[in-house]
């Protein structure tokens, strides 16, 4: 694989490539983030979950270099770094795939992959770009039939694939996915989840922001819960139950979700069993 970081051996997943320590961000009177700690290791998928307004987007923007934190430190391979701009974050090896993907629908796949970083800009080397595009797509076992069609003609899952592939062009070590499955159907979601597993297999650290508990439990190694701008627990995704995560998100074991579940359990419909 071409990614520089080797897949983490089992048991050493706690020493991170990227670590946040006590990161805070204030917008006027509102504390969007307070004392956030987060660790991401190579070959690990960390899901960041939280309710609306929990600070997920702010965290993404800090990691992608859009916002600078007011307090706290960001460590990359143990060294303190400042992410002044999206370009700086990208340079360092943190690539971000935004929720709206930011693709140009009128351009074809390879033009989108190399947008803004074309090879030989005064005499485009289409052949080299196409070759590199195929290499990356093969690495991800991605199913894009041809690179010559405009992105407008691709399905949602394929577009997500293109966006993720583009993020990989700079050979990042950490990849940030903001709601990667939000607008996708069942099959396309599975496609993207497979892709995330392959990213992990290639030794990348993946930070996945998500609302969808099923997707989180399907691919994540650890789940970091944010609540009202603070850490509210980090769980092992394979052990924790959805109820516990929801309880951490809402801040109470007795919450709207559990009340609903209890109500439905009390009045089971015909032919349907509740767990």
């Amino acid at each position, binding site marked *: 694989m071409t990614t520089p970081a080797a897949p983490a051996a089992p048991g050493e997943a706690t020493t991170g490539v990227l670590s946040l320590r006590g990161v805070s961000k204030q917008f006027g009177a509102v504390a969007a983030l307070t004392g956030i700690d987060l660790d991401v290791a190579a070959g690990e998928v960390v899901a960041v979950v939280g309710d609306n307004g929990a600070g997920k987007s702010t965290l993404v923007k800090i990691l992608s270099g859009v916002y600078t934190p007011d307090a706290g430190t960001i460590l990359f391979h143990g060294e303190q770094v400042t992410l002044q701009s999206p370009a700086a974050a990208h340079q360092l090896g943190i690539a971000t795939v935004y929720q709206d993907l930011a693709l140009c629908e009128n351009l074809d796949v390879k033009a989108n992959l190399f947008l*803004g970083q074309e090879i030989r800009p005064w005499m485009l080397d289409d052949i080299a770009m196409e070759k590199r595009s195929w290499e990356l797509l093969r690495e991800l076992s991605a199913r894009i039939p041809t690179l010559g069609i405009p992105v407008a*003609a691709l399905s949602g899952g394929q577009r997500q694939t293109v966006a993720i592939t583009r993020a990989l062009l700079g050979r990042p070590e950490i990849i940030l996915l903001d709601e990667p499955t939000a607008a996708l159907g069942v099959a396309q979601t599975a496609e993207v989840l497979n892709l995330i597993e392959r990213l992990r297999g290639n030794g990348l650290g993946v930070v996945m922001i998500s609302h969808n508990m099923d997707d989180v439990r399907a691919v994540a190694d650890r789940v970091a819960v944010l609540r009202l701008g603070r850490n509210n627990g980090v769980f092992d995704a394979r052990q924790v139950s959805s109820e516990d995560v929801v309880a951490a998100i809402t801040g109470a074991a007795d919450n709207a979700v559990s009340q609903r579940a209890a109500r439905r359990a009390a009045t089971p419909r015909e032919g349907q069993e509740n767990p």
Partner: protein
Amino acid sequence: MTSLETPPAATATDLQDERLAAPQGFRDHLRGTVRRARDGDLGMLPVIAGVVVIWTIFQSLNATFLSSTNLVNLAFDMVSLGVIALGIVCVLLVGQIDLSVGSVSGVAAATTGVVMVRHEQPLVLAVLVAIGAGALIGWLYGQVLNRFGVPSFVATLGGLLAFLGTQLWLLRGQNAINLPYDSTLVRFAQVWFVPEALAYLFAVTAAGGFLAAGLLRARKRRRAGLSSVSTRWLAAQALALGAALVFAVYYLNRTRGVPWMFMLFVVLVLALQYVLTRTGFGRSLYAVGGNAEAARRAGINVRGVYTAAFVMCSTLAATGGVLAAARLAAANQSTGTADVNLNAIAAAVIGGTSLFGGRGSAFAALLGVLVIQSISSGLTLLNLDSSYRFIITGAVLLVAVALDSAARRSRQAHGRG
């Protein structure tokens, strides 16, 4: 469907997906082209068909329409408007518009006349000042858009009036400034022709260059393990291109020949086409027109791209104005007024440039202006006044845009974006 092992190495990297129909030879390429057209990926086909229809109709109405003499005149007359339309393609690509190209061309024409005739300065200086003024105007539009967020529709509408006023002020009550007939500029636009032998050489070189570039590219692609077009298909295309060009040269040389001014237009078209398709800057024009926010996040300087597009547009408009003055041998109050604006925009759109940004090419301007100038020339031969010209041009524009919309729907239905 059942085999999961990697395809044999003989299959090109980009054709390994089993869902793809891979063209193998000449017939497959031809079939693929037909299928693309049927799906609505029409490319330049409708506008070429439009030219054929228009030429057939006018030829049947007046036998002199397709005469060598008239086509030579057509080649002269389309250059000024064509150069302006090239600029319009640039701003339309980034999703903006420039409504003032006519006035800007008028200012450039008047400037040329004032500097050259009234101040008796050398021709080169006059042309440089005129074109430089155009570049400055484009830069101004870019700043107004980037700094104040004024939509280009409004800013250039203001420019249309302001620069029309500037043009009249420059002429200061004179109806026209006549350019001397013996000046290089006027001779260039009226009596300079490519020597016949040289014109044939150009035609053959163009076809040969097309073939050589295609073969080179195919060989590079094969070496990189990618699919490549068949040599026979390339050769057939080059042969068709060469035959068409040689015939055009032969036909125009039956009377006066190929105007140098037309060659200038061709060079500008090819240069712009190169910039649009083969450079990172050209790609950023398309990207900004397609999704400005995505382009910004990809690290493209979106404001710079807007400014560059406006500068290119106004510079080309000014160049068109200088050429219009040269063609008329005069800069007068009506240079660039009346229908020049709308004809230039219509030419770009008829050629297949989208008004909403992100789609178009330099060839769009060439073919679009050929349509518009053909209509104008045909109606002049029939001694019909401009009322008919406006009506017919308008109708053709409507048909072109309607056809484009229908083709776009078809493309979407067939998954070609």
